[in-house]
């Protein structure tokens, strides 16, 4: 049984199929990459998994359970978390409160305030934001806001984490740090499904890669296989 899988997932916007009959699966402990040209449907697929969007057809299963039709907060509590392509931190509150919210509401456990604060501190340290706990989230740099989103998602104790282009807009050093963070997260036992455009990152950190184009899955395989696939190269060059 795959920890996350989908069959025939389809989503139309008006007359256009943003995601068309996509099958996918992610195994426990894997890091799976999702790549494709802009507009291929990658973020839409994530939206369908996290229940931000409702599929027109197809099913999505999480830990064997059909989660199509559930609402985002329910899916979060079941153990699936995500970050967003356009960063959605809670700007007017301090960094630590962003994470504290995840701790309090992300699982079905009741947590005391002091305990939540401790947990949040720990997570901020894990992602590298220790010194900034009381800073309003809007005052963080883009990189740090992305890290905050990760910490907030981790606070919900996910088993599967969807990362949407966390490396967009990062410089070389930051990309390397982000890659290390991704490995660290996997080392905690969390399965990762990540959308990325930064090829070097995807190729080096993923176990397996899926390629979408115009809403359809056109290739799947190891980084090696994908890098040498003529079809994938054409799709990218042709855009």
């Amino acid at each position: 049984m795959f920890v996350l899988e989908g069959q025939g997932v389809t989503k139309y916007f008006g007359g256009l199929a943003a995601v068309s009959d996509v099958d996918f699966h992610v195994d426990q402990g894997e890091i799976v990459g999702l790549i494709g040209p802009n507009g291929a449907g990658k973020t839409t697929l994530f939206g369908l998994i996290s229940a931000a969007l409702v599929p027109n057809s197809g099913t999505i299963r999480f830990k064997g359970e059909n989660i199509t039709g559930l609402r985002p907060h329910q899916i979060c509590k079941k153990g699936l978390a995500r970050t967003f392509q356009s960063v959605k931190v809670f700007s007017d509150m301090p960094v630590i409160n962003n994470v504290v919210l995840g701790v309090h509401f992300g699982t079905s456990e009741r947590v005391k305030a002091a305990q939540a604060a401790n947990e949040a501190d720990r997570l901020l340290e894990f992602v590298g934001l220790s010194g900034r706990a009381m800073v309003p989230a809007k005052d963080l740099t883009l990189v740090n806001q992305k890290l905050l989103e990760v910490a907030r998602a981790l606070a919900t104790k996910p088993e599967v984490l969807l990362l949407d282009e966390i490396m967009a807009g990062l410089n070389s050093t930051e990309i390397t740090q982000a890659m290390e963070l991704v490995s660290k997260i996997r080392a905690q036992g969390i399965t990762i499904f990540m959308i990325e455009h930064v090829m070097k990152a995807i190729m080096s950190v993923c176990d397996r890669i899926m390629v979408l184009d115009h809403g359809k899955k056109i290739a799947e395989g190891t980084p090696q296989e994908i890098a040498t696939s003529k079809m994938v190269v054409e799709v990218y060059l042709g855009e």
Partner: protein
Amino acid sequence: MIQLSWASIRASKSYLIPGIILLVGLIVLAGLPSFGPKYSVIFLSTIFMYIVLTTGWVMFSGPTRQISLATAVFFGIGIYIAAILGKHMPLLVMVLIGGLASSVMALLVGSLTLRLKGVYFTIFTFGLLELIKNAINWYEVTFTGTRGRFVVVVDNNTIYLYMLAITVLTVLTAFLIRRSKYGLALQSIGEQEEAAAHIGINVTLMKVSIFAISAFFMGAAGAVMATRWTYIDPFMAFNMNYSFTPVLMAIFGGVGQLGGVVSGAIIFAYLEQILITKYPFYYMLVFGIVMVVSVLFLPNGLAGVVKNWRARTTGGRYVRT
């Protein structure tokens, strides 16, 4: 180490002195009927009413950033409950039912409409007010033959004490919710609703709940105030001023801080009481000007101005986030 617990807040000195002042103030207010001038009781009841409506409005519209104009609906339901039931049951029960009826209405309206975005929600609440007002009016004209009803009469001191109690409960509830994880969650919903949903917050449940809680206090206040007016009709009960005025008071006072909200209510309620009989048009004119000035130049209201002033004069040391 970040101290966020209730225990640590209680222990922290910065709440001790204001807390004592408030307690003393409350005792004085409670004793007013016995030794204060007669008119003050009536005067203060109205001010309390505005504090309840304004605080209630902020409870929902503050964090969620959805401007509700349904305040008058909930207030009016309380008024009508008093008119219909007041003669048949003890005051306390009637007030509670008034509050509950408004809550139920809020639950209904909330679950139907909270997914409406931005202005749509606002104009919906406004349309609802007009619908209920005209529907009840039509009903009364067509079926009962008369317009309006008489309300049971209650003495001014009792009204005053009830309003004091409701005010304290409203402000206390607002304060406690703000400080709790639910208050934080509500704030996050207002800032990034989608992200909030994705970290496990049941957005619909939270919004509808806080809507219903705020409606309870508005309805209870309506039930009490109705007994002062003794005769009410749909146009008095569902008067749009009770929807507009709390919004102005809150914006002027500063939506972000409870102290600002309450101050805004007190200032304008006081102004209204003084000006409304002799200079009603000047009062409303000032109302409008303050509204425009606040929206254009004072995004954080009076509270924001005070905060900035304190930050500038104390070098930022005492600015609380």
